[in-house]
């Protein structure tokens, strides 16, 4: 069984209130490493057997149609072992 991962992030030019809130909270807890934080979604999709190219193409389509909102978000699809 393999896992296909779709990461969905707000486009860089779109305001990310959640990422902003996290970035503001980190230094209050003494964590100073972050220059910026963006928060997005991660979908883990379980498929039977090794994902085929056709399957990945389908996932791309689903990512565009359902998993992301192309008006404000970008996505990437990859296979994870």
């Amino acid at each position: 069984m393999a896992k296909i991962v779709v990461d969905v992030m707000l486009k860089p030019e779109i305001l990310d209130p959640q990422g902003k809130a996290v970035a503001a909270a980190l230094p209050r807890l003494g964590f100073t490493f972050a220059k910026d934080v963006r928060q997005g979604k991660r979908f883990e999709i379980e498929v039977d057997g090794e994902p085929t190219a056709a399957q990945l193409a389908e996932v791309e389509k689903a990512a565009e149609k359902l998993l992301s909102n192309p008006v404000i978000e970008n996505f990437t699809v990859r296979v994870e072992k």
Partner: protein
Amino acid sequence: MKIGVVTFPGTLDDRDAARAVNHAGGQAVALWHNDADLRGVDAVILPGGFSYGDYLRCGAISRFSPVMEPIIKAALDGMPLLGICNGFQVLAEAHLIPGALTRNHELHFLCRDQKLTIENTNKAWTSSFTHGQEILIPLKNGEGAYMCDDNTLAMLEGEGRIIARYVGENPNGSRNLIAGITNERGNIVGLMPHPEHAIDSLTGPSADGLGFFTSVLNSFLAGSVK
């Protein structure tokens, strides 16, 4: 009796909680998230709202507010502490009570008048009710599904630590219809629905919520708090 009501940035129901405290005969004291001390209060309420926008996870950021330090200390010492809705989420994030609150199973914010049964009446916040009493108060949240592992659930059930349960259809997917729970000692209560919005039938579905506030006052007068 002085009851502190905490305002975090984004808290919404602080005025309502203070109104309920005063209505019940207590004295509400405003506490600010940046306060380092509790201004001599005898109990604390963490009210509902969207502290820090509910970003990241509800209650996750406010849980680290400066005011939480003295609150946690006092509560572990036995001070009555009630977390309503977002306050419940803060309690869970601070691990003052077990479990976590997650997204409603229908994935919407839900505001409705909700029937509950009170299942634990010997604690600071529910002594005014009778065991099994059915009450009607507003429920309004987007992440109110109470989640915990099976062992924790068995423990909560076994120790009678479920304060209130939803009656009828599960509104948000909470395990075992849990609407509110308490810590082992019984002074800390997390409650998802809003008793502060049900202190008179003019502005709420009933006056049933008042019982939570009179409970803590009565226990205090009877000297049984702490």
